[in-house]
């Protein structure tokens, strides 16, 4: 394949070009309640080409490899058209030429197991959930994604590499009278099938939480101090700060570039944040990105001070900062964009009990329930929570959404726990100027943290 792709470049008049070709295999099995709604195992393929010419850039996705040559020519023409409309040429930072093959060796490889075996494991967990009388339905999904990618560029980089991630995840939906509540669960998050096995006890705990939620009161609207559990804190750092550490979001946004210069004090000295694709046990792990650059750990915040940023070759050149190896595409339909790998808040020194004891009137919020960010504004939900009154955990609360502004909220993080935990399921949606890319291979971790001020929405 490498030779086939390199042939495309023979008649190319470009400053730089690259092609990524993929063969992807997916297995998806899904129960909804007692019903098996989806079972599929299939293969897709396709390519993506990027061309830089005269300081302009054009990209193209295609499914017919035979057309790659003509697509390359059309892309170069488009890149030259762009160049005519630009005062400043786009440039790429120099990157080491990489050649070789980067293959995975999972402890228990899901690709070697039968569809029947995977279905039976999923059915087993689904049956456990359905045994609880308050459960009215479930979503129980097995998701396995394998990608074999070949990447070549005109600099001489030519690599083959693999991605593999397997998960079981879903929803437990319970009902009492007219009240319906749901709690999420997820196992897995890397290439090892054995992480999906023997998780009955974890599932039982989640079922119990869902049932407890039926007796919880809605959160009350207002501004409060909160303690976030590791899952919720990791969503906060991913959504609120992580996306602003992706340089493509700042590249053409002058006011944010100004606000996020290296050395800016963003938080208290207790706050340290890193991104690390080499943590291969977690969902965002990989060895090489989709721009042919090796991934590396980036210290984003050190003792409250901005010290690093996530880059493509293009943004690294523009910002004059080091490469980080964070350019990734979900599949061949998409161009690579800058994505967090495994972002996490480094552990601090506080205990959970100390954080709760420091709050007179607030909330303890548990379990991520999705989030959204726009620049420095963020909003995300919690699966459940507890009132904190006079330094003690109180009654359970439900229907919790919080929002805020990044810079003031980072400053409001005053305690960081000593109990770093990574979520087993990642996932992140980002458009990056193109269609939304939902990336399975995005990890996040955090210890418990205390935030002094958060706005909580509620119906009362």
């Amino acid at each position, binding site marked *: 394949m490498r030779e086939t792709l390199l042939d495309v470049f023979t008649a190319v008049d470009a400053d730089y070009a690259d092609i990524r070709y993929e063969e992807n295999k997916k297995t998806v099995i899904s129960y909804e309640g007692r019903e098996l709604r989806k079972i599929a*195992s299939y*293969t897709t393929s396709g390519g993506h080409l990027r061309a830089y010419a005269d300081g302009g850039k054009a990209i193209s996705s295609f499914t017919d490899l035979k057309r790659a040559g003509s697509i390359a020519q059309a892309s170069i023409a488009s*890149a030259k058209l762009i160049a005519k409309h630009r005062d400043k040429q786009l440039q790429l930072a120099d990157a080491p030429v990489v050649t070789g093959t980067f293959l995975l060796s999972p402890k228990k490889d899901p690709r070697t197991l039968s569809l029947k075996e995977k279905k039976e494991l999923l059915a087993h967990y689904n049956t456990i959930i359905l045994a609880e009388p308050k459960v009215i339905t479930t979503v129980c999904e097995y998701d396995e994604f394998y990608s074999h990618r070949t990447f070549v560029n005109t600099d001489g980089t030519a690599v083959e590499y693999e991605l593999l991630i397997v998960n079981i995840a879903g929803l437990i939906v319970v009902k009492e009278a007219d009240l319906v509540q749901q709690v999420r669960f997820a196992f897995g998050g890397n290439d090892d099938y054995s992480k999906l096995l023997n998780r009955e006890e974890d599932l039982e705990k989640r079922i119990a939480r869902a049932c407890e939620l039926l007796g919880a009161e809605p959160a009350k*609207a207002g501004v409060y101090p909160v303690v976030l559990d590791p899952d919720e804190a990791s969503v906060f750092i991913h959504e609120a700060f992580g996306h602003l550490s992706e340089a493509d979001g700042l590249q*053409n*946004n002058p006011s944010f570039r100004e606000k996020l210069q290296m050395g800016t004090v963003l938080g208290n000295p207790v706050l340290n944040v890193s991104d690390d694709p080499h943590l291969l046990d977690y969902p965002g792990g990989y060895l090489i990105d989709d721009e042919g650059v090796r991934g590396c750990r980036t210290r984003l915040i050190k003792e409250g001070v901005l010290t690093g940023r996530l880059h493509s070759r293009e943004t690294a050149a523009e910002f004059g900062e080091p490469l980080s190896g964070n350019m990734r595409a979900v599949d061949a339909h998409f161009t690579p964009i800058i994505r967090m790998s495994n972002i996490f808040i480094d552990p601090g020194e506080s205990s959970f009990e100390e954080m709760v004891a420091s709050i007179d009137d607030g909330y303890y919020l548990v379990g991520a329930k999705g989030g959204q960010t726009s620049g420095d504004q963020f909003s995300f939900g919690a699966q459940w929570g507890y009132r904190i009154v006079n330094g003690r955990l109180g009654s359970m609360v439900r*229907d919790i959404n919080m929002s805020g502004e990044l810079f003031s909220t980072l400053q409001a993080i005053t305690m960081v726990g000593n109990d770093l935990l990574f979520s087993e399921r990642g996932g992140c949606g980002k458009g990056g100027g193109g269609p939304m890319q939902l990336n399975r291979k995005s990890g996040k971790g955090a210890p418990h943290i205390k935030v002094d001020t958060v706005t909580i929405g509620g119906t009362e």
Partner: protein
Amino acid sequence: MTDLIKLATSQVDQAELYWHREHKIDVRYENYTLQRISENDLSSAALRVIDKRRIGLSCGIAPDRAEFLEEAKAAAQYGGKAGFSFSTTRKFPIVTAYDDNTAAQTSQELVLLCEAVKERIARARPDIALLIQCQASTEQITVETTDGAFGDHRFTKLALSFGAPIKGAGIGVYKHKTSISPFGAPEELVEEFLEWYGWTEQASTPRTGRLPVILAPEASLLLTLPLCAGLSGEAIVKKTSPLTKRVGETILSDKLTIIDDLLRPGDPQSRPFDDEGVPCQTLVLVENGLLRTYLLDLHSAAKLKKASTGNGFKRSLFASGTEVPPRPWPGHLVIKPGQTPYREMIAALEEGILLTGGMGFHSGNYTQGVFAVQALGFHIVDGKVRGRLDRTMVAGTIYQDLLDIRALSKEQRESPGGLAPYILVDSLQVAGARKR
């Protein structure tokens, strides 16, 4: 008949092929500068088979892939019980959604449209980081079954978006226009953008408490997302919907009539058939506040012993595309307009909110009609816009709070997934300035 369907006829009880082809050119400006041109030429296909009453799915890039049928058969071997049959229909409503001029658009022509928008806005606001995106696409969807259904639909779309982040804040003001045919710089939309952007110069936080809220068309998701989750035949089958057994009852204000109109001439969202080859229609979902019907695909219709409403689409809130199995989902939601000019709505408010968007729609208990979002929009005081909302959340339950609607605007604009007027809601719970 494609070779794949011919082959499937002799090997499985039923088969359904969905084949999507797309050619798209996309031009993007950032901070007034042409940043990127992309051109995609993609094909994808999905094959569902029912064999021995069990269903399986396979996907690929085109129907001619050798393993296609074998993979679907293997999946069906362990698959769930089908409970329904694939479509048999070959006759569909006539829908006009294709324009040769859009299909022939070049990247140069899209650049010219963007340049016209850029020059117009640059004259008024050279100080902002203007973003423009323009896409011209031609798509073709073919659905064919072993039971005789065959549908082939080609449509074009020209989509223009422009806007800018607010200086010093993460959010921005953005405007959108779509059509099946080429158009010039949309002057009215540019004017509205400039007015709204001007309103963002000041930040303002309303008091915590119940306040009247005007939902702009851009924020209609606050209503339509929970509503569609509740109207989904799947939620009715699972009994998780708060609208179960409520057809004929009042669920929203009597001022609201909501239609899923997939047959609007000249609309890129219009479709003669859904992704299961079932004819689409103009479907009244809510009429003067009364619930009229649910959204049904083949699966949920069979469970409820009804006919599909032609709403089996390969999309949902979190996913879309060929690999996604069809689910009940609206195609083009139209909220009927009222009589009130929207500026009169603003002028009538002592204190209130003009909500133009929200963050976190999906993180609340939206399937039950509950929302709690970070409010994007404007704070209104004494009938005038005081500034953009800052540190504000809006929360409620559509089946309670949207029973009381004061007025609908006479203006009807593009909204996420359809058309909507401005909707003046009597009051919603607002979390703003500290009140404790």
